[in-house]
């Protein structure tokens, strides 16, 4: 087993799936010769040729639209949006076409497509490069929305997403693209889409998060354990839609307290849906209001101040303490 960054792990998933299945195609701006602006597709064009690793003109809507046609005709396109903040150029193709083709034709056609996009802040990037708008996709019927939290599950989930018969929006946290390595087996590994994981066991408090924030939540959990003697159960959602709420409800039934952490804006954000689900599934077990530690309801500031926008370990700890002290 090699120690891989998330970039390398995703590259591994792509390479192996392309080797295994001729119908898998990678497409997007700069994914070919250049290997992608984050080098996620490095080496693929050399290996599989320009017909399968397609540098496209600069047009997000056509990338998704063309991929939809390819998918209907039996190919498995894996599109890259250079940053999730530019995926809105393709929003109508995703919402109105990719997400509906199966439904519209009563199952005659399917769109087994993955749309990968780097998301989130923390890497000193420019405006529009630090967005976390997973709600747009999670609220759209017909799409699945996956957000891995590290190299190993990114690889396993991407393999599943490529094999999934439906369009999957796949968010990759730039903050964790290279920030740590994990053992990733060369041998094929998959993870089911729609299943969360317990990232840390604990009895005192439940913290739900996903994606790049998982690392910070785990750090905060260590602080709380060390300083407060509080054991936090951390749930890493991995998939936002379909949302795996049962383990969250179960954990809350045990701990009675819940904190939700995400980079996305607070209002109408993913945390709201989690609170609604807990309201429905574990209402009588909540001993304190759920705390939301999230990005603020403003545009992510330019990078000199972006850390003040992102949930920090301190803010997470403070949110946890509020939930505990209530």
């Amino acid at each position, binding site marked *: 087993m090699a120690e891989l960054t998330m970039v390398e792990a995703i590259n591994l998933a792509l390479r192996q799936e392309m080797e295994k299945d001729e119908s898998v195609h990678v497409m997007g701006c700069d994914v070919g010769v250049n290997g992608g602006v984050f080098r996620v597709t490095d080496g693929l064009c050399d290996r599989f040729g320009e017909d399968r690793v397609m540098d*496209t003109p600069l*047009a997000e809507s056509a990338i998704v639209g*063309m991929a939809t046609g390819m998918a*209907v005709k039996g190919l498995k396109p894996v599109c890259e949006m250079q940053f999730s903040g530019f995926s809105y150029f393709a929003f109508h*193709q995703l919402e109105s076409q990719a997400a509906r083709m199966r439904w*519209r034709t009563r199952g005659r056609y399917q769109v087994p497509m993955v749309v990968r996009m780097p998301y989130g802040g923390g890497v000193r990037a420019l405006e529009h490069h630090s967005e976390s708008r997973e709600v747009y996709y999670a609220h759209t019927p017909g799409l*699945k929305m996956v957000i891995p939290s590290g190299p190993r599950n990114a690889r396993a989930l991407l393999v599943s997403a490529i094999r999934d*018969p439906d369009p999957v929006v796949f968010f990759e946290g730039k903050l964790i693209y290279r920030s740590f390595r994990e053992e990733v087996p060369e041998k094929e590994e998959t993870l089911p889409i729609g299943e969360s994981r317990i990232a840390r066991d604990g009895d005192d408090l439940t913290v739900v998060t996903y994606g790049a924030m998982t690392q910070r939540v785990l750090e905060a959990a260590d602080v709380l354990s060390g300083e407060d003697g509080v054991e936090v159960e951390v749930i890493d959602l991995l998939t936002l839609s*379909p949302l795996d709420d049962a383990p969250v409800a179960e954990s809350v039934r045990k701990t009675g307290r819940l904190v939700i952490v995400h980079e996305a804006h607070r209002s109408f954000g993913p945390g709201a849906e989690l609170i609604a689900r807990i309201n429905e599934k574990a209402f009588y077990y909540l001993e304190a209001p759920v705390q939301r530690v999230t990005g603020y309801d403003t545009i992510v500031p330019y990078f000199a101040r972006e850390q003040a926008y992102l949930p920090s370990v301190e803010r997470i700890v403070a949110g946890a303490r509020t939930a505990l002290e209530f």
Partner: protein
Amino acid sequence: MPRKEIGLESTIDYLSILDTKGKPDKDLEPRIGKELLLDMHRAMVRARRFDEHQLRWQRQGRLGTFAPVIGQEASQIGTVAVLDDQDWMVPAYRQSAAALWRGTPLAGLLLYNAGYNEGGEIPEGQNDLPIAIPVASQIPHAVGIGYALKQEGSGHLAMTYFGDGATSEGDFHEAMNFAGVFNTPTIFVCENNQYAISVPREKQTRAGTLAQKAIAYGIPGIQVDGNDILAVYSAASEAAERARKGDGPTLIECVTYRMAVHTTADDPGKYRTQKEEEQWQKKDPIERFRKYLTARKLLNKKKIESLEEELEKEVKSAWDEAEQRMAELDRHPEVMFDHLYGEMPAYLGTQRKAMTDEDDDANG
């Protein structure tokens, strides 16, 4: 030569073959077998009669809003007729003539227009995409399908349809450009019926023709008299040959006219004159083709009458079939959950069950 004119990849031609009296230009007249000629005629009349009936049913409240094809039969049948079964057809929402040619059952269209999702089913073996309502959004799909066909090396092609209004959308532009770059076997059929709802062609773009937009992508473009099925067929054949040979995409602008309403929610009296409508009436594609066929003795009054009778019966029986299916289907609103995903996720199953339970409650 510090200031010089740049040579473009290609020029834009205008093509017409049949004059308004149905007389062909002998040099250009395409060789089409008699059977195909009569099939094309039949398909044009069939599509028109069907929509005439649908307009009545719509007014009676039995159907919802739909977009009649009336006036555009030559533009659709002349193009779709060059496809074979392995080719793909990617329509917008006004391509009922093309869809019927390809095998879509009349009852299917009726179900669709009566608001049933089941109307969106496409028969196995018919390589068409479903009706696409968001303007121009289907065009990139034809590029993707073309790309896949090209990869197969099969010599098959994808043909997509859209209106004059659609050429203003970004998706038209992006798709055309992709087709040029990836050299896909895609035929872009722009049915310029002079209006995007109420907005006339002149307000849609300052370009003199829509065909010349091909120049922006370095691909061939041609403008044809879209009410002249021989011209349409010729242009489509040329384009198909190019696509099958690996020479890539073509843009065909069919200059035609929407003789009826935009959709049944529309009132053309608000934005166009009766005089204009009458002028186009004279260019009716079916009339013109009939004159040609009659002159060639392939058609006569009697044959036309028996065709009309036959179609009248077919349409009526399609309605009976559709009506019967509607009665069965009404009881199952929960189909809205089906086919959203390949496998239904648990939360949708729960919602679906809640709906059927409610329904059971309501019914007993």
